[in-house]
């Protein structure tokens, strides 16, 4: 497979997954804030609720260049729609579609038409501002666009090398997202003082929902909500498709398939993925990560970032060349 094509497939998977993750987090946050209890003495529910989202998305610096206050209008707009935010849902879908466009001869026509329709609806005709139902509707549409796309891909794209590169991108992005969401939540609960139980539960529900884990968690544990069990579920569960362990195991398997078809390429990426997966599979108690920090959340995030670099150097050896419009000469 052409290196450039493999890279396009990988990024297409990542960007669509990113659009879905961002839309989930935003939507949950928006709905949970509507009925959030007031906390006396807190520095303001609005800032407390919206600012952490910028940390999850690693978007704080860029946000500050455009806005003064992280409030319920600016943050959702920035994360959902702002054209200058490269991580906004809108930008993610636009990038996904750019990659798909470069793959038009490679992916199925149905996949292309699905992403192109979503692009026309959510990027070209995106809402101008966030009003009452707009954010929720937009987030639901973005999530459904992702489901539709990956569903069509599952049913129409041959499950060969190309599929595996797309899946590698998708699950790397997902593992990274679950880790970051959890990391920011743990930091938040650390800096907060003791609050009424109702508030804590409210936050726990929101955390689970933001990675679509609420119902699965309830079915898995027959006890109530409990931070320790939530961390365990999101980090170590073997079968929940958004847990860090599940994503990493699937990633190892995927990179294994890739390597099988590219026996002349270096096996470094597979080795790194396997090492990371065996670390997380060996952990019995989530406290080893959240309390003892062996490894810490940040270590895991860093190792995923390192794996991304290795994947790129092993399989996508090309440095992307930026083609300017003038170089793109016209034809008769």
């Amino acid at each position, binding site marked *: *497979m*052409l*290196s*450039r094509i*493999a890279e396009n497939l990988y990024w297409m998977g990542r960007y669509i997954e990113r659009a879905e993750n961002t839309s989930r987090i935003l939507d949950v946050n928006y709905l949970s804030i509507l009925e959030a209890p007031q906390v006396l003495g807190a520095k303001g529910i609005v800032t407390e609720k919206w600012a952490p989202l910028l940390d999850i998305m690693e978007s704080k610096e860029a946000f500050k260049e455009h806005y003064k206050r992280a409030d319920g209008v600016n943050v959702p707009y920035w994360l959902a729609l702002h054209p200058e935010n490269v991580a906004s849902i809108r930008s993610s879908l636009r990038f996904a579609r*750019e990659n798909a*466009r*470069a793959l*038009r*001869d*490679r992916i199925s*026509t149905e996949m*292309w*038409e699905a992403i*192109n*329709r979503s692009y*026309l609806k959510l990027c070209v005709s995106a809402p101008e501002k966030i009003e009452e139902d707009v954010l929720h509707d937009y987030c639901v549409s973005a999530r459904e666009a992702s489901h539709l796309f990956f569903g069509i891909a599952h049913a129409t794209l041959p499950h060969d*090398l190309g599929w595996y590169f797309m899946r590698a991108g998708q699950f790397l992005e997902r593992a990274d997202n679950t880790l970051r969401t959890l990391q920011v939540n743990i930091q938040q609960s650390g800096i907060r003082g003791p609050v009424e139980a109702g508030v804590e539960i409210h936050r726990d529900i929101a955390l689970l929902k933001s990675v679509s884990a609420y119902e699965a968690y309830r079915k898995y544990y027959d006890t109530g909500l409990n931070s320790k069990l939530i961390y365990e579920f999101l980090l170590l569960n073997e079968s929940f498709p958004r847990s860090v362990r599940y994503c990493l195991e699937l990633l190892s398997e995927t990179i294994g398939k*890739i390597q099988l*078809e*590219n*026996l*002349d*390429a270096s096996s470094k990426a597979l080795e790194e993925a396997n090492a990371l997966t065996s670390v997380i599979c060996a952990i019995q108690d989530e406290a080893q990560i959240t309390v003892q920090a062996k490894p810490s959340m940040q270590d895991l995030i860093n190792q995923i970032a390192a794996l991304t670099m290795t994947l790129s150097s092993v*399989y*996508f*050896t*090309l440095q992307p*060349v930026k*083609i300017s*419009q003038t*170089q*793109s*000469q*016209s*034809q*008769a």
Partner: protein
Amino acid sequence: MSFAEAMFKYDLGSFFDEAFERSQAPRDHYRSVIEGFIAYGESEFQRRRALIELVFRNQGITFTVYGDEKGTERTFPFDPFPRIITATEWAHLEKGLRQRVKAINMFLRDIYHEQEILKDQIIPKDLVLNNPSFRKQVKGIKLPHDIYTHVIGCDLIRDANGVYRVLEDNLRSPSGVSYMLGNRSVMARSFPKLLEGLHVRPIGHYPLELLKTLRSLSDKSRPTIVVLTPGQYNSAYFEHSYLAQQMGVQLVEGRDLFVEDGYVWMRTTNGREKVDVIYRRIDDNFLDPEAFNKESMLGVAGILEVYKKGRVALANAIGTGVADDKATYAYIPRIIKYYLNEEPIIPNVETFLGAEPEGLAYMLENAEKLVIKEVGGAGGYGMLVGSESDEKQRKTFLEAVKADPDNYIAQPIIQLSRHPTYYPDSKHFEPCHIDLRPYILMGEEITIVPGGLTRVALKRGSLVVNSSQGGGSKDTWVLAEDNHA
């Protein structure tokens, strides 16, 4: 006014009309389609027409407009009233096109080898050897089957008397064939009854014929063939990816290819893979930064040397542009005569050369009656349509002509034939000027898929059909036999 009246209320003017012989009198071969539209009725016609736009947009069958800040992709406007060509007309066109492309290839072979035509002074030496598109780097190279132009798009027009003429030969990398194919499939889907029983000749096998042509350029039994595109920001990117997909070959960019050990290779996730035939949609200038434009990031460094050794085939060959330049065009009838000893079956449009003193004088005195074109211009740019310009515009343009007369040619303003075309704003069928670009494939043999791309000048009264200047297109139907009405 009824829908039927709207179809017929139609001012023919002094032009040749493809569909109507006289006012209210359709030509025989158009009768069934006109009756078909009337049978659909207005609201059903409207509904089906609206669906077409949606299909094109959702499929992303778009082109990029240069100089548009937003980098907008637009759909190519499509008119549902098909252009119909009789079997007799097509037989004549096919014969004429075969004659023309055969002579053009003999000319190209000659000027890159013995140059007999220059020694016999049929065409000025300067015009060929000092032409910026003449590539001295490929002199003396032996090509498979002695063919240079594997894919040709020949622009044909019809004058006021209904005579088909060649307006331009596109011998480098003509585009538009994907619209020809897309137009047919959208017509078949949205107005199936019109096609039914009419015996329109199919065109869907074009990608297979193209693949066969490209295969014939290698002596391997299973050569590795690729389509080379400048990338997804090129205006014809959709077409590049479409053709690669339909042929089942890899679509590559310059950065996917490299030269090593005397061959061209693709970069893959598993190392390098050899490439035998390249259908390139990149101009000569951008093809090899070592040999041509040093700034090019679109091409493959060192590919010229591999090509010269016959270890990779390029379609089209390097250096074909010298034969489709607007000045060389004027000599094509003489070229046909010289190599084939035949009269051209499809005539040229009368052409005055700025390089010849009498031509220049005529140009300067009769500008309002002429179309004056820059020799190297394309896409409807760098030209003056005398009748559509004012005194001041003509004066400015003629100053440029006087400063560099060799760079201009002129042709009488040909009143291109007209064709009924639907206008959503007036809800009428109005006459528009059209042309026709058939595609000719040359490998071991010559193949012409019946039909071509019919382009329409949608701006009312305009003679410019180019998509970059408000042109649209129609499906083109070549009838298998003429004996039905």
